[in-house]
């Protein structure tokens, strides 16, 4: 069975998703076992594919036995390996985290919910593992459709947010498809590696430049690049707290990964493509500042985190735009550090809303009621601001090095300013959590019946994932040197080892 691992990464959650609506009507225990087993298989596949790719090089898997460019292939190289491992790990943690939030729902509703959850996960994993640009579109649509529905599950406001995301997201998918169409028109191929070879001689052809612009716009919408982020604050903050960590934590990062892969492994910057990258860089810089400023203005914790995501996705896009080894390392490291930190913060926000408090001003006294959650919040905030020894510091450091190395001082200045702005809004939250007195009874008790804080502040299935992600931030920071040297170095478009 081991030779099937690259396919199983995606197919295991996919197959489980097809059965979950049926089994949920019969037995919830069986359903949860099924979900857990499929997620474990997926994670095992991702980890072993990662190990294989580090030893033997990229693992190519041909669907239907047809060699590319005629068939579809999966390519798991070290980069795809670590990102699939990250997504798989998130899948397991957020699955546990979401269980208490669904406690009051009907079994069949749980079945539909987890079916969509697994489909979202399978879509994200498929985007990462695939080596075919059209297959990427199909899985992009699977993950997007599942995400629209999950966001719309978050109440009446959630439906509006989900519908607006559906309009924008589908338009983004269509733009991406049109970009694929232009490259297909001038090359006749859909396989990434094949396209990379064919496009080398077409760098300055107009359809290729338009294709790059269309693909950057499409994936830019999905990863909320500066002027195209309008859907994000509502979608992230109004989605049900059970899945918000997954949606906010990895969905945008997977699009960023796809953009990185397409730009650096397929279109290979040179000539006019570099000008597109320049535009991306300026937009990203604007997004960093605008996102931070908007985050300062927010009263609700979830919305503040959502705007902070706009700013943080700007870092990732900026690294892609700068495009030297240090900046790309920073981008990849930031994909990880931000995914873990933002997932962790949305779990903290979810714990807060479990307690009935969504606004920042209501979070006073959290340090007493939820000491462990508050401690995690401190760690995650430090990472977002970029203080050592957390992961955020090192990714920003690499980005700064990249900007300086390229001589773009403006980018460097923006990186520093934005850290200060981030510090402003996160320390405001910490001030409320640790220094302000709990206004107590005036706020009323937990939002819904059956939700109370017990001895261990929360149910373990909520608390443990939060703490694990908090530890992950620290671990990623402390062991960042082996992480970069052992894994990320092999993910750069040029051989640097």
């Amino acid at each position, binding site marked *: 069975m081991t030779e099937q691992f690259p396919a199983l990464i995606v197919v295991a959650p996919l197959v489980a998703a097809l059965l979950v609506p049926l089994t949920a009507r019969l037995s919830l225990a069986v359903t949860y076992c099924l979900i857990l087993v499929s997620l474990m298989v997926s994670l095992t596949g991702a980890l072993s594919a990662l190990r294989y790719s580090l030893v033997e090089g990229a693992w190519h898997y041909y669907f*239907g036995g047809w060699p590319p460019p005629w068939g579809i292939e999966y390519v798991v190289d070290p980069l795809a390996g670590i990102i699939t491992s990250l997504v798989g790990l998130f899948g397991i943690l957020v699955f546990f985290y979401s269980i208490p939030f669904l406690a009051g729902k009907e079994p069949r509703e749980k079945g539909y919910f987890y079916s969509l959850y697994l489909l979202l996960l399978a879509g994200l994993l498929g985007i990462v593992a695939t080596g075919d640009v059209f297959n990427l579109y*199909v*899985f992009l649509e699977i993950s997007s459709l599942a995400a629209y529905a999950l966001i719309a599950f978050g109440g009446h406001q959630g439906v509006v947010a989900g519908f607006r995301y559906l309009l924008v997201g589908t338009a983004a998918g269509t733009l991406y498809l049109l970009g694929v169409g232009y490259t297909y028109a001038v*090359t*006749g191929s859909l396989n990434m590696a094949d396209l990379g070879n064919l496009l080398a001689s077409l760098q300055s052809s107009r359809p290729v430049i338009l294709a790059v612009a269309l693909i950057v716009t499409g994936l830019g919408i999905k990863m909320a690049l500066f002027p195209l982020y309008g859907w994000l604050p509502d979608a992230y903050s109004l989605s049900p707290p059970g899945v918000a960590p997954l949606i906010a934590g990895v969905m945008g990062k997977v699009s960023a990964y796809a953009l990185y892969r397409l730009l650096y492994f397929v279109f290979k910057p040179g000539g006019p493509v570099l000008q597109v990258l320049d535009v991306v860089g300026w937009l990203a810089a604007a997004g960093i500042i605008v996102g931070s400023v908007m985050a300062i203005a927010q009263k609700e914790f979830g919305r503040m985190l959502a705007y902070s995501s706009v700013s943080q996705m700007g870092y990732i896009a900026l690294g892609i735009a700068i495009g030297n080894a240090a900046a790309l390392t920073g981008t990849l490291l930031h994909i990880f550090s931000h995914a873990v930190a933002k997932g962790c913060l949305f779990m903290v926000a979810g714990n807060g809303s479990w307690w009935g408090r969504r606004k920042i001003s209501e979070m006073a006294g959290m340090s007493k009621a939820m000491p462990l959650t508050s401690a995690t919040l401190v760690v995650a905030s430090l990472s977002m601001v970029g203080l050592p020894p957390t992961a955020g510091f090192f990714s920003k450091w690499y980005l700064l090095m990249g900007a300086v190395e390229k001589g773009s001082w403006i980018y460097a200045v923006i990186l520093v300013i934005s850290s200060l702005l981030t510090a402003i809004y996160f320390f405001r939250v910490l001030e409320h959590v640790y220094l302000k007195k709990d206004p107590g009874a005036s706020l009323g008790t937990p939002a819904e019946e059956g939700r109370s804080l017990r001895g261990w502040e929360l149910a373990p299935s909520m608390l443990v994932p939060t703490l694990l992600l908090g530890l992950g931030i620290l671990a990623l920071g402390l062991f960042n040197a082996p992480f970069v040297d052992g894994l990320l170095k092999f993910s750069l478009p040029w051989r640097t080892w």
Partner: protein
Amino acid sequence: MTRKLGYLSLVLLAALFIYVSLDLPPTGDPHSPPATHVSPRYIEKAYKETGAANMVTAVLADYRGYDTLGETVVVFTAGVATLLLLEGAFKFKKR
């Protein structure tokens, strides 16, 4: 004012697409890259390799069968999404 600027940018968008399209292979060109790079194998070998006289079926179900699996899953996703969104809504209303 913003509306007029919007209309103008739409016209510019159309002009951009038309300008770029001049560099695309003309419609029906049998020597264009899409006609010569990957597809000849489908046309020449599909029947021998997959047993389907209809080459579109051969490509759909066999050469690129995994895409079609994804496509079926998209349809399935739409069904489950509709169930999640509407089935509960009716129930809540009755209570």
